[in-house]
């Protein structure tokens, strides 16, 4: 593939690998937050008002941001009964049809989710719980993850188009 496209593909994959690793480490933030809440509730008998809520607020960004790189790792399950019967050429054509579907899906959803994330930021939306934290940042994870997924699908599309399976960033 042309050099600038190759650079683009590996840049996208690198960014998504970084996002995946941030998500990977997030679980080790979620667990202690929950543990503090459990200990305070059952041992000290004074539950935190923020424990469970903070953990659930982190949960969305956690699985959303991990998604794009998992696609690169071919970790999203698919029904491959028919696909396994195809030869290499037919399989490649299917891939060239499927990846634009993902791009379109992310694009349309992005179109509708971006305004609600921007509104949330502009109004300084909070959760209206006892703790009442700002929640625009967790909503912002939706358009962000969709952009990243769109870019990764585009990168995978270029890889298939130019028959470059580029394994350089494949290992997690």
């Amino acid at each position, binding site marked *: 593939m042309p050099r600038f496209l190759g650079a683009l593909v590996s840049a996208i994959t690198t960014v998504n690998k970084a996002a995946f690793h941030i998500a990977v480490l997030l*679980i080790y933030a979620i667990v202690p937050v929950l543990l503090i809440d459990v200990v305070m509730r059952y041992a000290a008998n004074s539950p935190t008002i923020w424990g469970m809520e903070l953990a659930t607020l982190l949960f969305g960004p956690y*699985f959303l941001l991990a998604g794009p790189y998992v696609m690169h790792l071919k*970790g999203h399950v698919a029904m491959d009964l028919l696909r396994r019967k195809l030869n290499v050429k037919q399989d490649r054509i299917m891939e060239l049809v499927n990846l634009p579907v993902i791009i379109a899906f992310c694009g349309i959803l992005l179109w509708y989710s971006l305004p609600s994330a921007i509104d949330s930021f502009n109004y300084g939306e909070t959760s209206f719980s006892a703790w009442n934290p700002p929640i625009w940042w967790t909503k912002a994870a939706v358009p962000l993850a969709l952009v990243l997924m769109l870019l990764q699908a585009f990168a995978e599309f270029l890889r298939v188009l130019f028959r470059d399976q580029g394994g350089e960033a494949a290992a997690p």
Partner: protein
Amino acid sequence: MSSTAILLMMFGGLTLFMLTGLPIAFVLGGLSLLITVLFWNAQAVIILVLQIFDTMKSEALLAIPLYILMAALLSRSGVIEKLYRAMELWFGRVRGGLAIGTVVICVIMAAMTGVVGAAVTAMGMLALPEMLRRRYSPGLATGTICAAGTLGILIPPSVLTIVYAVTAQVSIGKMLIAGIVPGMILASLYIGYILIVCWLKPDAAPLPKDFEPAPLRQRLAALTSLILPGLLILLILGSIFFGIATPTEAAAVGVAGAAVAAAIERKLTFDAAFSAAVDTARATAMILWITIGAKAYVAIFTGLGGADSLLNLIRSLDVGPYVILTVMLLILVFLGTVLDEIGIILLTVPVFIPIVKFLGFDEIWFGVLYAITIQMGYISPPFGYTLFYMKGVLPSGLHMGIVYRGIAPFFLLQGAGIIIAMMTPGLMTILPRLMIN
């Protein structure tokens, strides 16, 4: 456009999209978008966005990565190897003992973790070579491991049960606890079957000629390996059963317990913790992206009146409730052979639950039946997950044909399990009814 036509389009489109090999998450999400834009109005796409926000703040679904992480840490902790050694010392001198012991360990692992892969992989690496060395029939050995490994779906905690409970909107704690009785029944069926096979065909599981039982002191010492798993199980199931903690809180404590177990075995390295978290993020992202797609799909399906027209169709059929129930279960068993199980639950539960309510059946009991059909899906070719795990650990001399033949009797036993569960709704829901609140 009539609602029946839309119904046909949604199911037909689903089948067609699935066959292209597009990841299930995007099949569901993409089809929902397409139908919304074509047949509803474009502004309704906002419903899909709201579904995503809704999924993100689910406390119940947060339990999923926690139980996966717990399993990932435990399988790196060396605790399972120790359990296996203890089992070998105690069951090694019984005919078919290693196979029976494998079922017992799988039950313990099922009660510690919420995923299937960990048990199948661990037993495939530990028990399979030893059973083959003792000239067990390869079919019996691999079938036992695959089938017993799926007990994790019924025996709590279980990720798939959580997905069911969230989708069917029943109490997660009750649904989890309900898995215990049928899980034990299935485990007993497996053990009974192994005993009968060994009795009819002694060659299927011969005793080694040079076998010498270990001294009692050594055997008793090996039992210390049960302490940590026992405590973990007691902690998690106990706190759920007595309503002390939510399943999510119990899962967080379980992760801490698994980390402590790994630390005691001196296996809690940075690498182990990181690779456990990588496995967790992969599995969770896969499950939750499907969840988003499925929620969107179901929202559109209901919004366009698909659920209502399906109910009307069933009302007009005028057949007995048990006939409809059997048809639903057969559909699930069939889907289990071709489709991912998370996808099946998320897609079919919202369609089936209104029918189940209409027929006057208990949703928790139906959940138990569901879980058994999912176990059948897990061991049946071509899409059974346990088969993939088994493939990864199979010695070079064996091929998958032996495994396929080996699981056949266990598939039938699971079918028998469904029939037992269908005939004893009272027994299946006895534990959840005993629960406080």
